[in-house]
C-alpha cells in the first residue's frame, strides 16, 4: 500500500504539474496573440504617421505649383499684379557690412528685471553650460544676446568650408546626432547621457534642428554657443529644415515671432543668412560621410568643396564680366560667396518688375499648366520619371527666376542649377532598396537612391559608410544598403508620445558605431506597452479622420456611383473609394474597425458615417461646404502665401491682399468664390476693423478642437507674458 500511495502521489503530482504546464501554454498562446495584434496596430499607426508626413510635404509641391501659376498668369494689365510682384519681390541685396548694421544689437537694452543669462563675448564653456541650464529651467534668452550670439555665429560660418573634415586622432570618440526638430528634451537627454561638447568630446549635428517641436530657437542657441566655444570640436550640418521658406510652414517662424515680439523679424532674417551658410557635409577620417538627406548618382564631393571659392554671377547688372577682378567689391562678394542658397524650395525671387516682364515663360508654362490633380497623378503614378525631365523643369524655373540672365551668362545659370541640384540631393534624398536613382517626387526634391549608387559613391570617394538622418526610425536608427548606409534620428516620440526612440552614435578611431537609444518624456515610463500603442494610435486615427472629412465631397461623389438603395455600401467599396480619393497607401481594410463605428451585415451607412466625422466649422454657417473643404485642404499653401505677403512679419495682412490671394488661389483651383463669400470669411474671423486681417486668427478657424491646441494656447499666453520682460 506504501507503493500504491507513492504511485498515486506521483500520479497526482504529475497531473498537477501537467495541468500547470498546460495552463502556462494556454496563457502564453493567448498573450502572444494579443501582443501580435497590438504590434499590427502599432505598425499601421506608424504607416499612418509616415504617410501623413509625406502627404504633408507635398504641400510644398502645391505651393511651388501655385507660384508657378501666378507667374504664368501675370500680365501687366491684371489687377492682381501688385500682389504678385509683392510676393515675388526680391529681398534687398546688401553687402554683408550693411547687414551687420541692420542686425546691430547695441541699442537694445536689457532691463534689470531680466533674470536670464547675460552673455559676454567671447563665450566660454561655463557660459555655454549656463545657457543649457537656463533653458532647462524654461528661461528665455534676451533678444540682445540672441542677436549677438547669432552675429558671432554668422561671422564664424562665413569662413568655414562647405565640407567639415574631422579626425578621430588622439583617440577621440566622435558623437553624432540626427534630427532634433525643436525637441529640447531630447538634446538635454543626450547631453545628460553623453556629456556636453568639449575638446575631449567632439560632436557632429546632422541638421533639422528646427520646426515641429516647440523649442527650436533654444536648440539653435545651444548648438551655436558650443560651436563658438569649441569651433574645432563641434560640427553642424545643414538640414532641409534650415530653410526660411520651410520654416514659414512648419512652425519655426511662428515660434520665433511669438517668443520675440519686438525683434523676432530681425532674428529671423539673421537666421536666414546663417542657415544658408551652414556646412553641407562632414567627413570623418576621410572614411565616413555625414550628411542630412543623402546622395544621388551625380553627387560629387569635389564639386561641393569647390563652391567655397566658386565664381558666381553677380546679382546686380554689371557692365562687363571681364573686369570682374578689378572691381574689388564684386570680387569680395564672389570669393566669399560660397554657394549660399537661401531657400531650396523657393528659388530666388524676381528682380524689379521690368525684368519680370522680359522673362519668357513659354517653356515654363507648359510644365505648370497642369492642374493640381494632374500634377499629383504625374508625380505619384509615374514609376519611371527620368532625372533629366525633372531637372529640366527646375532649370527652366531657375533661369526664369534668376535675375538678369543675359545671353552669355546662360552657362552660369546651368552652374546655378547644378549647384542647386547638388544641394537638394544632399539635403532631401532618401535611400530605397532597389538599384538606381529616381527623383523623390514624394518630398518634391532630391532623389531616391539605391544600393548600387551607394556602392559607386563610396568607391569613387574612398569612403566606407554614409551616416544620414531625415527619416524617423522606430528604434532611433536603422541600417540599409548592406550596412553601408545608416539612418540616425534623434527626436524621440516624434509623431506622438511613445511612437519611437531617438538615438545617437559614437565613433572611435576604429570607426565602429556604438549606439545609444533613449526616449524622452517621463510620460512614456508610466504607460504600459498597450497603453502606449493605444495612445499613439488615437492620434494617428484622429489625423486620418481629419483627412477623410476634408475629402468628404470627393468621397461622396465617388460613392454615389455605387451605393445601393438603402444608402449602404459594402466595406470593400468603402475601402476602394478611400484609396482612390486619398491616394494614401494604407491598409484600409485593416483600419476599418477604427474608422467606422458600426456595420450591419458587413455594410455601412455612409451618410451616417460622414456625420460622425464632424469638424468644428468657422462661425459662419453660410460658407459652402465644398469651398470650406477645399480651402482647408490648401490651408498650408494659403497660410504660407499669407506669411510671404506679410513681409514685415507683423502677423497681419491687408484686406486687399487677403482678398486677392483667395481669388488667385480659387482661380488656380478652378473654384468659384464670390466676393460675398470672401467677405463672409473675413467677417467670421474677428478682424480689427482697420482693413487688416490677423493671419493666425484666420487660420485658427481651420483648426480642429483638441486638447493639445488648448495646451499650446496656454503656453503661448505664458510666453507672451514672459516676453514683456525679455523684449
Amino acid at each position, binding site marked *: 500500500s506504501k507503493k500504491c500511495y507513492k504511485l498515486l502521489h506521483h500520479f497526482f503530482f504529475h497531473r498537477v504539474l501537467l*495541468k500547470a504546464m498546460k495552463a502556462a501554454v494556454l496563457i502564453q498562446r493567448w498573450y502572444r496573440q494579443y501582443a501580435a495584434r497590438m504590434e499590427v496596430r502599432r505598425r499601421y499607426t506608424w504607416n499612418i504617421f509616415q504617410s501623413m508626413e509625406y502627404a504633408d510635404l507635398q504641400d510644398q509641391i502645391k505651393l511651388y505649383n501655385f507660384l508657378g501659376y501666378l507667374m504664368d498668369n501675370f500680365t501687366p494689365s491684371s489687377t492682381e499684379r501688385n500682389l504678385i510682384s509683392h510676393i515675388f519681390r526680391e529681398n534687398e541685396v546688401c553687402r554683408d557690412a550693411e547687414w551687420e548694421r541692420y542686425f546691430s544689437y547695441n541699442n537694445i537694452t536689457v532691463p534689470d528685471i531680466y533674470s536670464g543669462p547675460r552673455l559676454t563675448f567671447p563665450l566660454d564653456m561655463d557660459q555655454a553650460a549656463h545657457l543649457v541650464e537656463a533653458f532647462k529651467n524654461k528661461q528665455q534668452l534676451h533678444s540682445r544676446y540672441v542677436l549677438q550670439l547669432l552675429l558671432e555665429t554668422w561671422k564664424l560660418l562665413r569662413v568655414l568650408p562647405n565640407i567639415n573634415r574631422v579626425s578621430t586622432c588622439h583617440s577621440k570618440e566622435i558623437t553624432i546626432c540626427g534630427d532634433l526638430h525643436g525637441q529640447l528634451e531630447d538634446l538635454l537627454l543626450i547631453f545628460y547621457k553623453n556629456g556636453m561638447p568639449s575638446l575631449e568630446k567632439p560632436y557632429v549635428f546632422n541638421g533639422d534642428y528646427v520646426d515641429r517641436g516647440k523649442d527650436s530657437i533654444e536648440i539653435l542657441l545651444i548648438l551655436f554657443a558650443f560651436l563658438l566655444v569649441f569651433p574645432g570640436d563641434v560640427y553642424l550640418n545643414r538640414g532641409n529644415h534650415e530653410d526660411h521658406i520651410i520654416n514659414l510652414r512648419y512652425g519655426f517662424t511662428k515660434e520665433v515671432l511669438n517668443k520675440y515680439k519686438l525683434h523676432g523679424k530681425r532674428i529671423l532674417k539673421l537666421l536666414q543668412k546663417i542657415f544658408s551658410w551652414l556646412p553641407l557635409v562632414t567627413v570623418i577620417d576621410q572614411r565616413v560621410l555625414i550628411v542630412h538627406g543623402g546622395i544621388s548618382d551625380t553627387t560629387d564631393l569635389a564639386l561641393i568643396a569647390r563652391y567655397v571659392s566658386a565664381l558666381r554671377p553677380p546679382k546686380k547688372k554689371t557692365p562687363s564680366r571681364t573686369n570682374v577682378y578689378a572691381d574689388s567689391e564684386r570680387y569680395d562678394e564672389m570669393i566669399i560667396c560660397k554657394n549660399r542658397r537661401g531657400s531650396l524650395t523657393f528659388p530666388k525671387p524676381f528682380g524689379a518688375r521690368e525684368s519680370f516682364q522680359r522673362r519668357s515663360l513659354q517653356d515654363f508654362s507648359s510644365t505648370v499648366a497642369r492642374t493640381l490633380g494632374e500634377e499629383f497623378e504625374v508625380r505619384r503614378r509615374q514609376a519611371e520619371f527620368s532625372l533629366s525631365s525633372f531637372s529640366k523643369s527646375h532649370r527652366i524655373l531657375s533661369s526664369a527666376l534668376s535675375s538678369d540672365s543675359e545671353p552669355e551668362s546662360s552657362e552660369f545659370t546651368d552652374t546655378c542649377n547644378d549647384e542647386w541640384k547638388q544641394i537638394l540631393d544632399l539635403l532631401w534624398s532618401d535611400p530605397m532598396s532597389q538599384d538606381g536613382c529616381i527623383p523623390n517626387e514624394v518630398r518634391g526634391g532630391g532623389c531616391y537612391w539605391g544600393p548600387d549608387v551607394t556602392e559607386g559613391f563610396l568607391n569613387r570617394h574612398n569612403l566606407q559608410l554614409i551616416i544620414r538622418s531625415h527619416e524617423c526610425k522606430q528604434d532611433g536608427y536603422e541600417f540599409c544598403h548592406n550596412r553601408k548606409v545608416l539612418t540616425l534620428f534623434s527626436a524621440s516620440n516624434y509623431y506622438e508620445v511613445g511612437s519611437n526612440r531617438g538615438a545617437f552614435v559614437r565613433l572611435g578611431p576604429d570607426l565602429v558605431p556604438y549606439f545609444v537609444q533613449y526616449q524622452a518624456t517621463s510620460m512614456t515610463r508610466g504607460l*504600459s506597452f498597450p497603453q502606449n500603442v493605444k495612445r499613439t494610435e488615437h492620434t494617428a486615427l484622429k489625423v486620418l479622420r481629419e483627412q477623410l472629412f476634408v475629402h468628404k465631397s470627393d468621397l461622396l461623389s465617388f460613392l454615389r456611383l455605387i451605393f445601393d438603395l438603402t444608402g449602404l455600401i459594402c466595406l470593400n467599396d468603402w475601402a476602394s473609394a478611400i484609396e482612390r480619393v486619398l491616394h494614401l497607401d494604407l491598409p484600409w*481594410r485593416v483600419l476599418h474597425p477604427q474608422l467606422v463605428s458600426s456595420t450591419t451585415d458587413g455594410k455601412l451607412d455612409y451618410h451616417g458615417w460622414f456625420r460622425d466625422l464632424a469638424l468644428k466649422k468657422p462661425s459662419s454657417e453660410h460658407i459652402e461646404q465644398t469651398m470650406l473643404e477645399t480651402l482647408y485642404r490648401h490651408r498650408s499653401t494659403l497660410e504660407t502665401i499669407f506669411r510671404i505677403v506679410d513681409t514685415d512679419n507683423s502677423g497681419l495682412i491687408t484686406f486687399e491682399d487677403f482678398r486677392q490671394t483667395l481669388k488667385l488661389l480659387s482661380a488656380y483651383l478652378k473654384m468659384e468664390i464670390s466676393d460675398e463669400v470672401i467677405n463672409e470669411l473675413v467677417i467670421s474671423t474677428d478682424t480689427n476693423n482697420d482693413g487688416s486681417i490677423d493671419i493666425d486668427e484666420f487660420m485658427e478657424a481651420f483648426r480642429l478642437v483638441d486638447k493639445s491646441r488648448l495646451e499650446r494656447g496656454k503656453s503661448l499666453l505664458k510666453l507672451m507674458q514672459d516676453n514683456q520682460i525679455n523684449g
Partner: protein
Amino acid sequence: MADKYSADTIITETQKRISNAFDVFDHESNKTVDVREIGTIIRSLGCFPSEADLHDIIAELEEEEPTGFVRYEKFLPTMTKILLERKFRPITEDLLLQAFEVLDQQKKGHLEPEELTKYLTQEGEPFTQEEMDEMLSAAVDPDKNVILYKDFVSMMTFDDTR
C-alpha cells in the same frame, strides 16, 4: 446557387483580409515578408496558434532553400485554408480564467509577479524576458504589486472587442 455565391464571397473576403494583413508587413512592397513576422501576421488575422504550430506552418511556407522571406503566393493558399478551416480557435475568457486559477494553487485570488514569471518563463513555450516584462507592465496592479488575474482577463478581453 445562392450558397455558391456566398461561399465565393466568403473566400474573396477572406483573401482580401489576408492580403491586407500581409501588406502591413511587406515593407519593400514586393509581396514578400520577413519569415519572422509570419507569426504576427497569422495572429493578427484572429488565430491562436502555439509556437509549435507556427513552427510547422513556417516549415511549409519556406522556400526549398530558405531565403528568410516568405512569398505571398505561398502564404495565401496556406492562410486561406487555416482561416476557412477555423484552425487555432480563439481562447475564450472562461478558459483563460481557468488557466490562471490552475496556476494559483493556493487559491489566493491573485498571483505574485514572481510566481507568474516562473511559470511563464520556465514552463510550456517559455516567454522571453521582453515578453514577460511587457505582460507584467499591463498585468500587475501598481498599488498592490500583484496580478489580480480576474480583472486582468476581463480588461484584456474587453479591449479585444473594441
